[in-house]
């Protein structure tokens, strides 16, 4: 019996030792490693002497000349519109430096060579109705060439028999409300649920009511002033500098308590308010993306840090579209800063957000 006690005790002791040695103690030791580097102080004159003159980056100003479009290079297939890829201008490129589009022109055959009117042999005379046949809206060649190109008049324009004097708007008269009748269409909505025409129900009941006032909250001491200026940095240099500053403060700032479930949920809901999946394809919408980003103490996300960590359920192209929607949501709703407790900044300095629209499929 005692042997079993001894064996059990030895096993427990060995396990505890292993946990302490390989667990937090080991990681603490690793985290305590201080990296030192040799630093030399240079004076301004010494620095100037090190940098050769004219080493500053030069802006490229010489641009390729624009070639005239070459009609002879039109593709042989008469059924295709010629589409030529253009190089995209860099946001910092010198204006007026077009990459040369190699233009290939081809008559876009439609697979349908029919005149505006019906074939004469097929149409009964009574069927040829001038009002029903829609004239081509491309301007027809005119006998007289106007000095300035003019738009063709609308085809429905007619000259009235009676002369009607033009009305001059009275500047003091109140603006007239004009109601524009439009084709029936579903109202634009911002919701996570789509109600089809078949599901709409006519009701006289009150469908919305005043939102109750929020419960009064105890006054909180003013939060400490943010470390970064109000305007969010966008240039890479500023982002890098900010990241350095964050790294520095990370080592000294105390870590607050973890965010509560309510705070996390409110954060997710705040991001979701700008997460627009309406334009995504079905496959992109079915793709779950995990997006990581850094936050500033002001609650504003660091734009340059937004990156996709992983995705599930779709192709890479689907994931790219889903990530684009997620990135727009983070930036748009984070412009003024998410409402997060500053005292817990260390808990939300880095965020990993999973965007999953599975529950938003057509219902």
């Amino acid at each position, binding site marked *: 019996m005692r042997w079993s006690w001894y064996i059990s005790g030895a096993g427990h002791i060995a396990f505890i030792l292993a946990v302490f040695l390989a667990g937090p103690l080991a990681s603490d030791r690793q985290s305590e490693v201080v990296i030192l580097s040799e630093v030399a102080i240079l004076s301004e004159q010494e620095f100037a002497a090190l940098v050769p003159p004219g080493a500053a980056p030069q802006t490229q100003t010489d641009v390729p000349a624009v070639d005239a479009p070459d009609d002879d290079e039109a593709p042989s297939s008469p059924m295709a519109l010629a589409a030529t890829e253009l190089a995209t201008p860099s946001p910092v490129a010198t204006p007026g430096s077009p990459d040369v589009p190699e233009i290939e022109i081809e008559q876009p055959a439609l697979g349908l060579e029919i005149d505006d009117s019906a074939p004469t042999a097929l149409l009964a005379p009574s069927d040829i109705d001038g009002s029903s046949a829609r004239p*081509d809206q491309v301007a027809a060649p005119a006998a007289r060439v106007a000095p300035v190109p003019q738009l063709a008049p609308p085809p429905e324009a007619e000259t009235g028999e009676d002369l009607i004097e033009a009305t001059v708007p009275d500047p003091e008269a109140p603006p007239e409300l004009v109601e524009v009748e439009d084709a*029936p269409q579903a109202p634009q909505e911002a919701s996570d649920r789509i109600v089809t*025409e078949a599901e709409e129900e006519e009701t006289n009941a009150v469908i919305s009511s005043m939102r109750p006032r929020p419960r009064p909250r105890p006054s909180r001491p003013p939060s400490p002033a943010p470390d970064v200026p109000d305007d969010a940095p966008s240039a890479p240099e500023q982002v890098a500098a900010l990241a350095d500053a964050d790294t520095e403060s990370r080592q000294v700032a105390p870590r607050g308590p973890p965010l509560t479930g309510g705070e996390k949920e409110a954060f997710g809901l705040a991001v979701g308010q700008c997460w627009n999946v309406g*334009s995504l394809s079905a496959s992109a919408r079915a793709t779950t993306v995990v997006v990581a980003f850094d936050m500033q103490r002001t609650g504003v996300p660091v734009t340059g840090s937004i990156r996709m960590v992983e995705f599930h359920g779709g192709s890479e192209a689907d994931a790219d579209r889903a990530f684009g929607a997620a*990135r727009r949501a983070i930036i748009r709703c984070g412009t003024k800063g998410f409402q997060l407790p500053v005292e817990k900044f260390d808990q939300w300095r880095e965020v990993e957000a999973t965007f999953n629209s599975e529950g938003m499929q057509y219902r």
Partner: protein
Amino acid sequence: MKQFLLSLALAFALGTQALAQERTGPLRIEITKGVIEPVAIAVAPFLAENPAAEEYAARITEVVAGDLVGTGLFRDIPHQAYVSQVADFDAPVAYPDWKAINVEALVVGSATLTSDGRLLAKFRLFDVFADAPLGDGLQFAGVAGSWRRVAHKIADQVYSRITGEGGYFDSRVVYVEATGPKGDRRKRLAIMDFDGENVRYLTDASSIVLAPRFSPTGDRILFTSYETGFPQIYELTVGGVDKTPLAIDAESMTFAPRYAPDGRTVVYSEARRGNTDIYTLDATTLRRTRLTSAPSIETAPSFSPDGRQIVFESDRSGNQQLYVMPASGGQPRRISFGPGRYGTPVWSPRGDFIAFTKQNAGRFHIGVMRADGSAERLLTASFLDEGPTWSPNGRVLMFTRESAGAEGKPALFSVDISGRNLRRVPTETAASDPAWSPLLP
């Protein structure tokens, strides 16, 4: 006692480790609820590279914006709201100016009219919040008269890059145009752009025509005509407007034709001696194959995009329901089980859904369901909705809606597969039986 101390130490050790791990990780949140609203897009006025192109630049801008907004997925920011104007096609984009007015995507383009009458139009698309272009710039070219197609092509590209699925703007719709009073309608086949422009007529009104269907390549059309006094199937070449009778048989009536994905096989219904069944016909050899042999009425067949299955309607259970069977025939499997009657099924070009007409409780609906009958959704409800047809990308349905009463007229409507963006397709006269073409080459 020793055991207790050891357990306590173990728990402490594990808790410490867990706390250390929690402290080192990022904050993890999950977003499961977003919003469904149009994307704010700015279609900057296309720049005219020369004075002769000014007119076309303005028109192309209008059509591109109209195409995108018409999907219900985009909201065009008016030009008056722009903080900065686009003055040069190659100028760097001032992203902050567009972010300031909440523009998510920016389209910049230009048009040139060459001396020989050719139109060149190029565009670039920018993701404003990513501070980066969305794909490469593209240029399209054609004769000046084809400016609408050029604009549709540009809109297709923009749509495709933002949504991740193919566009449908550069496509056509064939339909039955109806004139005259309700009891004496004259009908003829007409073809138009998807947005109702450029209407052309393919047949005269001397005989009733029904249910036109495009071939997979868009160059031929199947339809049913009463030219002989009985419904018979004809094939019409779009470019030449010449028609050829198919499956003419004095002892039978043939109707509800539709092409197989191979473009040569035609599946249709044939009523012979009071019984209607489904047949296939090789349009080259005119060889017919009977696929069903039930005493009930089987009609409205439609191939799956891979050509392996056929969905059709049948009243073999007592009322109209939807069934799926192998393309070579065989035991059908019922897929519709809801209340009411189901008809005119059409398989989506993406293969994910089957659209149908449903009649229930005195109302007609256009709906969609999965190929196994699951996830049924009704998208519309009215006095009479029927005959859905899919857009080339499988995102939009067009159908016939007829209003009630003696003055009621059929018209074409379209609706997004989600049930949003229900809108009327503009036609100058009454119109029914739409069939959407594939994307034009």
